[in-house]
């Protein structure tokens, strides 16, 4: 999570309006689902990889590595679709006899699996593109412009900000415990982890109280209002989006 966060902040495409990037990612996901051809999914993934790398300035292999990690989950899911298990030998396709069971796959099941996999791959790549070029503060900004209720926006802002602070507290307390042999064996470890969790809660309570005081000192009146950031809205951006959409439709027609 922290790695993705770091790359998102340093992305060259960060200055671009998050609304545009989110819109593009959503459009690609929808097209992957609707057009439903392996070529479309693969092409979408390639587009997203290319954009994140050349437009966003991401290391070439990083996108692939993130995608690979997600592909592992994807393969597990798709395997269940491709392979079927039954007590009678299947009429078509390939099968192996394992005792009373027949494990096999057919051309039809393979095709379904391929479609599913490429569709999901395209969608996942689109989400990765968004996550690796747009930090959460910018996404929250976009949601604010879309008139999301202020309460939700405030919660997201605070949760995201204090995730890192709490993580720091957690590491600090854990180190302090470990340096006094708090995790020397399983039972001590369990008890220390319990204390850690409790302490973290107390820490969060104190922190929220102090935050409230600091916010009130700056004139807080029930809503965390901040100035929206300014983004670049290049004229060629819509054309890029249109080009991607057109190429996906083209892939659907050809394949």
């Amino acid at each position, binding site marked *: 999570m922290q790695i993705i966060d770091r790359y998102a902040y340093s992305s060259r495409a960060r200055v671009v309006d998050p609304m545009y990037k989110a819109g593009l990612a959503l459009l690609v996901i929808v097209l992957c689902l609707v057009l439903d051809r392996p070529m479309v999914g693969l092409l979408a993934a390639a587009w997203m990889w290319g954009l994140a790398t050349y437009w966003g300035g991401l290391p070439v292999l990083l996108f692939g590595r993130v995608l690979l990690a997600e592909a592992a989950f994807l393969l597990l899911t798709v395997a269940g679709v491709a392979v079927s298990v039954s007590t009678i030998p299947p009429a078509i396709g390939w099968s192996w006899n394992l005792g009373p069971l027949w494990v096999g796959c057919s051309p039809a099941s393979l095709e379904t699996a391929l479609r599913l996999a490429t569709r999901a791959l395209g969608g996942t790549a689109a989400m990765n593109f968004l996550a690796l070029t747009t*930090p959460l503060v910018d996404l929250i900004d976009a949601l604010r412009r879309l008139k999301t209720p202020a309460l939700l926006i405030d919660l997201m802002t605070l949760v995201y900000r204090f995730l890192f*602070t709490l993580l720091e507290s957690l590491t600090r307390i854990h180190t302090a415990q470990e340096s006094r042999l708090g995790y020397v064996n399983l039972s001590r470890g369990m008890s220390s982890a319990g204390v850690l969790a409790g302490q973290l809660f107390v820490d969060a309570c104190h922190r929220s109280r102090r935050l409230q005081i600091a916010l009130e000192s700056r004139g807080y009146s029930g809503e965390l209002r901040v100035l929206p950031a300014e983004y670049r809205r290049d004229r060629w951006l819509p054309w890029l989006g249109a080009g991607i959409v057109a190429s996906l439709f083209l892939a659907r027609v050809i394949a």
Partner: protein
Amino acid sequence: MNPILELDNVHYRYPGQPDPALRGASLSVPAGSKVAIVGRNGSGKSTLFLHCNGILRPHSGTVRVGGRPVTYDRCSLLDLRRRVGIVFQDPEDQLFSASVAQDISFGPLNLGLDGEEIRRRVQVAAEMCEITELLNRPTHAMSGGQKTRAALAGVLAMDPEVLLVDEITGSLDPWMRRQILAIFDRLVSSGTTVIMATHDMRIARGWADMVAVMDAGRVLATDRPDAIFADRNLVELITPEDEW
């Protein structure tokens, strides 16, 4: 010179605490001065600060800002908090947004300023605290000194007349401390009053032009640094002799 900030015989006890935190604290700060408040842990420095911008309300006694007693209705509190800003000890408690620019814009927005003016103020405050290049960096990726300066910028963007600083130099390296003191000097020369709670006697002696000594919820003495440090018994109360 007229006092910009006055506390007169202020008493306060935190709910649920047996002992009062302030027992008749009085302080008068001339406009445009550099004040160091010294005193041991628990002597009431932070509690005193929270009275100055109306976060806490004294059980008895009065707080006056610009000669007028503080009133505690919503509208006057907002005005009070514009005039009196507090930078808290731990910047983590103050920075609520993961974007530094957005965090700094919070105060000016609450003052109801328009977008153009807010943008200008964010820029000016960032320049003053030398964090312009950090404006678009995430808060959680910054060092302690950078966070401190970001928190300071968030308060300066509200353009306060009185700046209260609660012991922020303790966790800074000597160069960063010097940089922060230089920022305060620039503020004072443009008319702001800076009041700093500190345990650093060098700051009290060398930087401040007025020192207030606090002990057990009272201000024992307020005077020029050389006068304060000439009184052995007084200074012994707050710090061992070899630390002066």
